[in-house]
């Protein structure tokens, strides 16, 4: 998807500027597309990296997460 806004350098620094540019492309239907990311294969490189992230998580950290009730 193309973004509607671009950022430009001006005298006042970076500014966001609305661009009359490429219309957003509609996704095609699920029948004629890959229909978004699927659950990756367990042995894929991306899943390896995610597994590494998950294994780094302290198994007990949820017990330390004690919050006040908010709104």
């Amino acid at each position: 998807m193309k973004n509607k806004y671009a950022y430009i350098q001006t005298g006042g620094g970076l500014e966001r500027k609305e661009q009359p540019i490429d219309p957003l492309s509609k996704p095609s239907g699920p029948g004629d597309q890959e229909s978004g990311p699927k659950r990756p294969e367990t042995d894929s490189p991306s899943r390896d990296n995610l597994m590494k992230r998950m294994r780094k998580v302290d198994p007990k950290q949820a017990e330390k997460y004690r919050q006040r009730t908010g709104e």
Partner: protein
Amino acid sequence: MHNRIFGIETEYGLLIKADQPDVSPSWVARRIIEHLFGQKKHGVIDWHYRGHDEPPGNGGFLLNAGRMYVDMGHLEYASPECHSLWDLVAVDRAGDWLLQDCLDELGLSELVSIIKNNIDHETDATFGCHENYLVTRDFPFTYQGLGLLMPFLVTRQVFTGAGRIGMARSVDGWISLDDIEGRGGDRSRGSAEEGVLYQISQRPDYIVNDFFEWVQHNRAIVNTRDEPLADPERFRRLHLLMGDSNMAEEATLLKMGTTGLVLQLIEEGHAPQGLDFDDPVQTLRAISHDSQQKWMVTLSTGQHLSALDIQEQFWEAADKHYAGQDEETDWVLAHWESVVKDLRQGYQAVVGRVDWASKLSLLETFREAEKLEWDDPWLKSLDLEYHNVDPQAGLYHGMAEEGDAPRFTTNDLVELAKGQPPRNTRAFGRSEIIRHIVKEGWADFIEKAIGHHDPRRPPYVINWSVLQLQGSPAFVMADPFRSYVQESRDYCDEWSSRPSMESLPNKPDI
């Protein structure tokens, strides 16, 4: 998006990872606020009382015209007003990054994680992600009018839910003798041991009413308070607190975009009829708890439908009336249709786009690899880590980094949105005045004045619809659709041409 202003308010959780009794979430929140406004000058701190629960120095408005503050012990970020959904997704992520930047700069990131979720598993606390939609004063704020919104809100969780392990043990305000005596009590409505191992949304266990005007204890599906924060003769603000904090950008866009379109259907008399539930609160909860993900519901008419069928009816009405309305509407319509169709194939078809599905996929993979049972505490810890806003650690961010979660903004735009407001709403005018205050050195002045300043005569007051600098008249921004670009610059120029700060009566002797 056509005729709509959007905003999101996020309450963050703070995870203290080490066992350090002198480091509490409230201490970390204070350090971050002081760093953000005092050291970084990334906005201007409020120097007046905001209601009874916000003393001076509790928070302030940011350069991007949003607000960062402490609310009920939580860091809370209120986004600036956005007319565009693409702006909204950028400023929403910018709030995460502003906080993570502070944590990194304070050297606290090894000790603390910022968690963008809505529950803790240990104490059953909940905290919100509130959505704001500006509607016209003519919007039917009646039980009948808002009732048309109810079936949409109850069922949209199939693509807006953030997912969680287990369920809350008891709702606020209801502690039964059975609970106290350990006999289970309210657990009869479902618990981990009864099969709610994982549910698709975090907030349904805490929603106990269909309509109500307050935001804590007795939370409702539709909050009915009338606080437009704009011209009350022209506008109302629909404030929803039943949704989850989303990590997936597509989920954020769909949550806000589809709700905006359904509000338009109601405003213009095109909303689907006859989809009422006898008990919307129980239906909301039952959909979230349904481990089979069939999401079948019974209407007041006795008809049985699935949540997806109901979403499809709303989509059909919106597509019929608003296709071609503008680019963002077309994007929302296309992705709404796609996600509902894909959900019929199973949750794996929407991994990366829908938070509960992404999290479930990660948990299932990890559980299988490590041979863990569903009640293993490690899975709760991973549940939290999905919401860690640190791109180097958070599991959602890990998926995005690997290309498994589609992005709809860019890191450059998020970086920009940390300090720049949307340019086509009144956020722009507010930001101009905030910048002027910072440029004129008032932020430094205030910092030095701590302990000397009289909060009854603050040098400035900034609010969503009105601002005032000491020595100048109030600057009113009653129309959120206007940028007030010229008026705000003129206001600043006039203020600067007034007598210098030294001659103002409130200058402290420092």
